[in-house]
C-alpha cells in the first residue's frame, strides 16, 4: 500500500513539475502564462528555498530506510535506552519504547507526506467534479448542491473527522486517506464552480456551445485549464493543512495506527511525558512546522505568480 502510495505521490509531483515546465502539454487557450508563472517563481528566492526544502524532504523520505540510523519500530533496549535525551548516537533522543526518534521522524515523513498528498489529490478530484457539475447544471440543482457545501463548511473539518473516527474506532491507513479526502473538497468545489460560471459566459465558450460541444468537452477543454491555477494553489496550501490535520488526529490517537510513525503519532507518544521528555514532542513538531511553512511559501508564490493582476518585478 505504502509503495503504491509512494509511486502515486512521486507521479503527481513529477506531473505538476512537467505541467509547469512544458506549457504545450495542457490545452490552454493561451499557453504563455505558464511560462510566465515559471519565470516568476524562479525569481522568488523564498519560494525556491521552500521548493528545495520539499524536494530534499521528499528525497529523504523516499530513501528513509537507507539513511535512518535505525529501523523505525526497533526497540533497542526497553529498559536501559528509553527516554534518552538527545546525544550524538540519538540526535533527537529516544522515546519511551527506546526507539530512535530521528529514525521515526524520517519514516514519519513518508507517512505524513503520502497521506497528505494522496488525500488532497482525492479532494481536488472530487471538488473539481462536484463544482463542475454544479456550475454547468445551474439553477435549482446548483442551489441545492451549494447549500449542502455551505452546511458542510459550517462545521469545523476537524470536528467531522473526530466524530467519524471516534465513532468507528481505529481505521486503516487507506481509510484515513479516503476520509481526509472526502472532507477536503468543499472549498475546491466552490472555486471550480466560480470558474465555470465565469467561463460559461465568455464568447469562445458560447461559440463552442453553439457548435454543439458537450458540457464535458467544454469543461475539459476550456474550463479546467482556466480553473487549474486556483485549484493548484488551493491544493498546495491544502497539503500543509492536511499534514496538520493528520497530526491532530494522530495526536488524539485516532489517526495513523502504531507502530508505523507519522509526525502526529510521534507527538502523541511524547505528549504525556512532555514535562520531562520534551524531545519526543519537539522534533516531529518542528518537522511539521517547517514542511507546512515550505508548502505555504510555495503556495503563496504560485498564487502571486498566477495572479494576472500581478505586475512583474514587484
Amino acid at each position, binding site marked *: 500500500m505504502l509503495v503504491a502510495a509512494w509511486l502515486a505521490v512521486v507521479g503527481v509531483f513529477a506531473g505538476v513539475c512537467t505541467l509547469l515546465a512544458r506549457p504545450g502539454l495542457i490545452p490552454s487557450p493561451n499557453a504563455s502564462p505558464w511560462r510566465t508563472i515559471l519565470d516568476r517563481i524562479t525569481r522568488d528566492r523564498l519560494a525556491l528555498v521552500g521548493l528545495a526544502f520539499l524536494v530534499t524532504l521528499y528525497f529523504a523520505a523516499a530513501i528513509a530506510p537507507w539513511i535512518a540510523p535505525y529501523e523505525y519500530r526497533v526497540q533497542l533496549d*526497553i529498559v536501559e535506552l528509553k527516554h534518552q535525551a538527545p546525544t550524538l548516537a540519538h540526535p533527537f533522543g529516544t522515546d519511551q519504547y527506546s526507539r530512535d526518534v530521528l529514525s521515526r521522524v524520517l519514516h514519519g515523513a513518508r507517512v505524513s507526506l503520502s497521506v497528505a498528498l494522496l488525500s488532497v489529490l482525492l479532494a481536488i478530484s472530487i471538488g473539481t467534479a462536484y463544482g463542475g457539475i454544479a456550475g454547468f447544471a445551474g439553477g435549482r440543482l446548483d442551489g441545492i448542491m451549494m447549500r449542502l457545501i455551505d452546511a458542510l463548511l459550517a462545521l469545523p473539518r476537524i470536528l467531522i473527522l473526530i466524530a467519524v473516527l471516534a465513532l468507528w474506532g481505529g481505521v486503516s491507513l487507506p481509510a484515513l486517506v479516503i476520509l481526509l479526502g472526502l472532507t477536503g473538497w468543499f472549498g475546491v468545489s466552490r472555486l471550480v464552480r466560480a470558474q465555470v460560471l465565469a467561463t460559461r459566459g465568455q464568447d469562445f465558450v458560447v461559440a463552442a456551445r453553439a457548435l454543439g460541444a458537450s458540457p464535458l468537452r467544454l469543461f475539459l477543454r476550456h474550463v479546467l485549464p482556466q480553473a487549474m491555477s486556483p485549484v493548484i494553489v488551493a491544493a498546495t496550501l491544502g497539503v500543509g493543512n492536511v499534514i496538520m490535520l493528520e497530526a491532530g488526529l494522530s495526536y488524539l490517537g485516532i489517526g495513523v*495506527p502504531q507502530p508505523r510513525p507519522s509526525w502526529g503519532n510521534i507527538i502523541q507518544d511524547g505528549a504525556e511525558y512532555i514535562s520531562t521528555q520534551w524531545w519526543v514532542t519537539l522534533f516531529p513538531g518542528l518537522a511539521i512546522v517547517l514542511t507546512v511553512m515550505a508548502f505555504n511559501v510555495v503556495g503563496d508564490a504560485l498564487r502571486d505568480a498566477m495572479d494576472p493582476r500581478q505586475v512583474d518585478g514587484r
Partner: protein
Amino acid sequence: MRHALALPALLVAAIACAERGSSNAPSGGTLIVTIGADADHLLPPLITGLVGRQVADLMYYRLAELTPPIRTAGDEGFEPRLASRWRWAADSLSIAFDLDPRAQWHDGTPVRAKDVVFTYSLYTDPVVGAPGSVNFANVDSITAPDSMTVAVWFQRRKAEQFFEVVHNLVPVPAHVFGPVQRDQLRASGAVREPIGNGPYRLVRWERASRIELAADTAHWRGRPRLDRVIWTPAPDPVTTVTRLFAGEADFYESLRPENLAQAESDSALRVVPYPSLQYGFLQFNLRDPGDSSRPHRLLADRELRRAISMAVDRDRLVRSIYDTLAFVAIGPVSRAVAMDTTMTHLPHDPERARRTLDSLGWRVSGGDGIRQRDGVPLAFGVIVPTSSRPRINAAVILQEQLRQVGVRLDIEQMEFTTFLERQRARRFESYLGVWVTTPTPSGVRQPWSTAGQSNFGAYASPVFDALVDSAVYARSPVAARTYWRRAYQTIIDDAPAIWLYEPRMVAAHHRRLRITEFRADAWWAGIPEWSIPPDERIARDRIPLAVRHE
C-alpha cells in the same frame, strides 16, 4: 436541597460522642485530592467508577466497616457503623443487625431498618441496573422485623457471606429516593446532590471541576478531623500530577514511574507505597470474533497460545513501563488477595516459542519475517483504549516482542467506549485489559470462569470452575488454599491470557498531612482520622467552615 443540607449540623450538636474523639488531633484543615477522572455518580447503588466510590465512602456508612488488614471470611474483620451489633442465627443462614439509634441522615431524619430494606430493593431492581447486584446472589431476602432491626436471610452458608452483604450494601435514605420513579432515578436531581449519613456531607459537585465535602461537625460518631475534602478531577495524567507538585493539591493516589523520583526529592511531599488489587493482561478471544459459536481460527489452540506467551519477556516489559512500580503479574489474581502465590509460570523462552510454532506448521517464508501456514500469516489483532497509557505501551512492546518470533500483532487503538462495546460484543481477537478485583479471592470468577459476566475471551474450563467452586465453599483454610493453588495453576497452564503486570501503588501527600494506615482496597477509608497540625497549616487550611463569598 442545599438548605436541607445546611440544617442538621445545628440540630444535633448535643450528641457528639467519643468514638472518633479518641484521636486527640485538633480538627480543621483542607485536603485536596487530585485525581484523573470525575465521579460517575455519588449515589452508592449507581456508582461504577472508583472516584464515585471514594467520595461516597466518606458520605455514607455501611452497616459495618472493614478494618485493615482485610479479612473477608466471617465477621472478625468488621467494626460497627450503622449497626451497633449483630447476631448470627444458629444455622448461620440469617444475621440480625441492630441499628445504632443515634444514626441519622444529613437532613436530620433518623436511619431506620426500612432504609436498608429499601436500598436492597434498589440494588436488586433490574430497572435501576445497579452494578453491585451480583453480590447479592446468595441473599434470599432482607427484612425489617422492627424499625431498628435488619434481618438478612441467606441461601447458603459461605465463608464470605457476611462480607458480601455488608461490604456491598450501602444504605441510602428511603424518604429521599423512595418517591423517585425507578426508571427516572439516574436522571433525577436528588441523585446529583445525594444525602448521606457519614462523617462528611456534600457541599457541591461541579462536573469535571470539583467535588467538595465538608465535615459534619455534629456527627453522631464524632466529627472528622479535617474540615473539608475536595476532589479536583483533571482531564489527563500530566495535569493531575502537576497539581500535586505545584502545591495546588495535597494528595495523589497513584504516582507513575516518571514522577516517583521527583516526588521523593520534593521536601514538601511524603511518598506512601500501598498494595493494589489490580492486574493488567492480554486476553485472547478463544472464539471467532464474527461468530462466537465457532472457535477462533488461531487462538483456540492451547499450544499456540502457550508459544505466544513464551515469546513475551514480561519482566522487561514491566520494568520498561513501570520501572519499579509494578510486579510481574502472578496470574489471574493480585498478590494482595491471592491465597497462594507458588504457581509455576510459562518461561520467557523465544527459542522454545519458535520451535513450537515451527512444529505447528507456522514457518517464516516472506521477507517480512512473519510466519505463514498455507499462505495465511500468523497475525491477530489487539484492541486497546486510547485513554490508557500503560496499556498502549504494553501493546507496542508486545507487538515488537512477538515480531521477533514471527508473529504479527495488529494494534487497534480506540476510544474507550468503542473499546468496551467491542469487548462486550466479543468483536476482538485479543484485548489489553486491567481488572480491579474485589478484596476477596472469589472475585476471580467474574473474568475467568465459564459463566463469568466479564469473561470476554470465552475461556471455558470445567476443571478450573470446579476447583474455584471447591475453594469458595471449602470448610478449612488449608483445603481452600490447596484448591486455589490448583485452580490458578490450571488457568495459567491453559494460557487464555498473558498476565502482564500488577501495579504497586505509590501515593504522595503533602507533608503537613497526618495520615493513617491505608486499607488495601481503599486508601481513603481512613480520611476521617487524617489531620493537619495547627502550626503547619497553610492558607487553605484556615478557611473557616461557614464563611464563603457567595
